[in-house]
């Protein structure tokens, strides 16, 4: 038993609904009690879909349990097939139906449904979650439709470069995009365009927009692109095992990853290797331009599904010059990759689906920017930290009307804007530093920070410094350095002796006065660093001198 207040992922049958709803011509009969129909609103409200998900629920009630619920399942299946005439039928159950063991899949297999392909989904609701359910459902559906096409064991693997002999263009499948996934609609378009510009055709996109007949054509492509491993990982490895189809595994989010992706796919298919990528996206130049100097070493905290967390860590640290101070995911299935990426950044990955643990880690890491899901957006708001949403779970605002992919060159542009805009603009930050004694910049005037940092985080009640913070303190951000270059008034009061230390450190009045001169948006960090410095030296009182000593210490 596990206490959950908010959850990152729904139950596994919601994953199955994502597959069915993403496709055309598929219907899902779900043995579930009334109430479980709430899941329809995920699609009609969050995704703003203009039609109901293709799901029929048995909506059994307590009084049905005494009778024949199996009969209810069969009746529901018959009616759904009659009404919706699907090209493939998924049959499964939600958590409660799993307990009453009617085995709807087996019941459906025993029915005469006029030859509709039936795929039975067994998704253990008490141990698995939404993304696993999506991956498993997609895999079962593909396997169910393709099992008769599997070449006999020992057949030669088809060459990914056979398109040359066959006198056609190279073609690939894009696997994994689905409803309730992050920006999948636009990523598919962006990657299709990118591949087209290198002469590579997209054969099948699935599950998003595919029909069962399209899935039957999957083996006709030269390779599979595993765009979203959370959903397509299982299918891609099955297609690799059963049909010898190669998988392109690089997820093209960010400049470096998109370059790697193109290299991987062109080498695999034997297509001409693309020229340098630099000029295809504005991100590299925007990141080099002087205005972006202020981004250097910005502390970012990243928590997302594995795919987007990994991509964000690479972009943040390499392409924007941020300092990643926290990295984690709720995708336990892909935890290993995230752990490895965190280790490379000198961090320990946070693998958790407890949003309170994530919020705690976030507070401890004291980031200046949070890249997360809707859950982290709310935590960051409470902590007064700017945030950009980079991953599911979604809110209706994460399904924008405008074209806003995450993948490919345009995706990199979108990422630059959406991560940098929550921060104060660079020039603004310099000006505030220069003019910070002007009345416009006294406390309370915080128009540039949106909802603003709560005062308490500046004056006390600070999160305890963590190891990650202590490391980062050695590399102060330019804003911190800049405070020192302008502030020059030393206090006359002599520094108190270390001998007086009683385990407690207090601010002297001139120390406080000096601290108050520091712009509010870096004051918290300066205060924290100075206190750490004082504690380490067992100083009882922090004077203005101590503040400058600490500044000199940390600016090494």
């Amino acid at each position, binding site marked *: *038993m596990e206490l959950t207040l908010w959850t990152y992922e729904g139950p596994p049958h919601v994953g199955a609904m994502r597959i069915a709803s993403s496709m055309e011509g598929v219907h899902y009969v779900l043995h579930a009690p009334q109430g479980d129909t709430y899941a329809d609103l995920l699609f009609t409200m969050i995704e703003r879909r*203009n039609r109901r998900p293709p799901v029929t629920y048995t*909506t059994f009630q307590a009084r049905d349990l005494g009778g024949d619920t199996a009969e209810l399942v069969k009746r529901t299946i018959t009616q759904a097939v009659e009404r919706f005439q699907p090209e493939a039928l998924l049959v499964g159950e939600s958590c409660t139906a799993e307990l009453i063991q009617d085995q709807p899949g087996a019941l459906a297999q025993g029915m005469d449904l006029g030859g509709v392909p039936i795929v039975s989904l067994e998704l253990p609701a008490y141990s698995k979650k939404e993304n696993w359910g999506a991956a498993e459902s997609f895999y079962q559906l593909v396997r169910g439709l393709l099992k008769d096409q599997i070449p006999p064991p020992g057949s030669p693997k088809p060459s990914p470069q056979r398109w040359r002999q066959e006198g056609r263009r190279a073609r690939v499948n894009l696997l994994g995009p689905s409803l309730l996934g992050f920006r999948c609609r636009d990523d598919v378009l962006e990657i299709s365009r990118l591949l087209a510009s290198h002469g590579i055709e997209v054969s099948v996109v699935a599950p998003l927009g595919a029909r069962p007949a399209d899935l039957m054509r999957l083996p006709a492509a030269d390779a599979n692109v595993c765009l979203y491993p959370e959903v397509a990982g299982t299918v891609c490895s099955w297609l690799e095992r059963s049909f010898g189809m190669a998988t392109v595994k690089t997820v093209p989010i960010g400049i470096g990853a998109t370059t790697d992706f193109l290299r991987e796919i062109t080498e695999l298919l034997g297509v001409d290797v693309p020229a340098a990528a630099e000029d295809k996206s504005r991100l590299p130049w925007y990141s080099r331009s002087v205005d972006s100097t202020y981004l250097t070493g910005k502390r970012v905290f990243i928590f997302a599904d594995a795919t987007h967390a990994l991509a964000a860590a690479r972009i943040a640290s390499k392409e924007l010059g941020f300092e990643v101070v926290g990295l984690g995911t709720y995708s336990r299935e892909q935890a290993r990759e995230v752990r490895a990426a965190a280790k490379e950044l000198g961090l320990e990955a946070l693998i958790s689906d407890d949003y309170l643990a994530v919020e705690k880690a976030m507070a401890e890491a004291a980031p200046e920017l949070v890249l997360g899901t809707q859950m982290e957006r709310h935590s960051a708001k409470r902590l007064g930290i700017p945030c950009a949403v980079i991953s599911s779970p979604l809110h209706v605002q994460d399904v924008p009307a405008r074209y806003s992919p995450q993948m490919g060159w345009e995706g990199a542009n979108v990422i630059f804007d959406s991560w940098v805009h929550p921060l104060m603009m660079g020039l603004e930050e310099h000006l505030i530093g220069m003019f910070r004694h002007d009345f416009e910049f006294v406390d309370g005037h915080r128009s540039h920070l949106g909802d603003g940092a709560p005062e308490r985080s500046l004056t006390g009640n600070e999160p305890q410094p963590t190891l990650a913070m202590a490391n980062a303190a050695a590399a102060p951000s330019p804003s911190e350095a800049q405070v020192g270059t302008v502030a020059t008034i030393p206090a006359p009061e002599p520094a108190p002796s270390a001998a007086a230390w009683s385990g407690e450190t207090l601010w002297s009045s001139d120390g406080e006065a000096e601290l108050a001169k520091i712009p509010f948006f870096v004051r918290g960090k300066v205060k924290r660093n100075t206190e750490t410095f004082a504690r380490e030296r067992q100083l009882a009182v922090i004077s203005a001198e101590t503040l400058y000593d600490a500044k000199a210490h940390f600016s090494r």
Partner: protein
Amino acid sequence: MLAPPTSADAALPEVLKESGQREVFCGLTSIVWLHRRMPDAFFLVVGSRTCAHLIQSAAGVMIFAEPRFGTAILGERDLAGLADANDELDRLVRELLERRPEIRTLFLVGSCPSEVIKLDLQRAAERLSAQLAGRVRVLNYSGSGIETTFTQGEDHALMAMLPLMPSSDEDQLLIVGTLADAVEDRFRLLFERMGVPRVRSLPPRRSTELPPVGPGTRLLLAQPFLSGTARALVHRGAQLIESPYPFGVEGSRLWMAAAAAAFGLAPAAVAAVLDPLETRGRRALEPHRRELEGRRLFLLPDSQMEIPLARFLARECGMELVEVGTPYLDRQLMAAEMALLPPGTRLSEGQDVERQLERVRAERPDLVVCGLGLANPLEAEGIATKWSIELVFSPIHGCDQAGDLAELFARPLHRRQRLSFV
């Protein structure tokens, strides 16, 4: 006991009874408004990830630092051994209460899976209550989808509080059903002005301050979906005041007047309070009535508020009722409402959503009241909709709210008139 069915029942229209796929929330959803009503209570659903996801999705937004509701998600280990499940529940409750020392009442809320595996939450509540004696009261009820539909969750929650209500012969008016605090304050003031001796509410604002009940209690239902609670209170000696529900000017006036009559208050004093309210309420309604008059309305079953709302929209806003669906029809509690419906109104009980949508498409009503899962698909078919869930979250009771209530229905129509893409 409640009065036996009156002869008026015989004149009521035939009700179309349907069974098939229901497109409704389960009773867990009512936690979303119940926890706001009682800020010192915590609602712990003992269920599955689906339960947690449902409440989160129905609440619509994830805005709470740490909400006063949560789900104890059953895992495979809990299913394997119920003894362990009880230990696990105790551990989890202990941890939860350590973190939330301000909680005074803990509701263990049963779900579909906990009911099916027969996890005895009543015994768990008794056990935990004994352990936490004096600090936290632990109650239990079922909000499961196999037993409750949407608003019935509140009915079950109130029934769970009932045994803790002290007995008293004191004359009092007991308003039953969650109201917005401001609306409740307003009603109290009005009843005081009329001369009602004492007004109390269930659920109370503080979970520990439960009102007493006994032969002096006149029971006034603020919500139409509290069948079980009403019967249980009558069993404790309360007298049920039969009346339409306080939606719209007419319903609110009849509701308040019925309460006043139950206390034998002088009609002139009552009228002196209610007449100006009625005049003002009608004035507020007028602009919306112009928008709604003659428009055809189809209510899909959802909150059990459909019949009172249909009565209000037909009689005070001039709407034409195409069909009024309700998930469950309590003929006794609905008798006063049904008597006010226009003759020949088509009522349906239960649901077969596909067939009902066929009727919607065939009738092409001007406005459909429905759940969130159906709203956008119907809009895409060119049919204006009003989300029913807003009706349980908005302050809509009373004469002063009648204009706002009408506006909720007028807005989708008004919006369609404003939009133009040519």
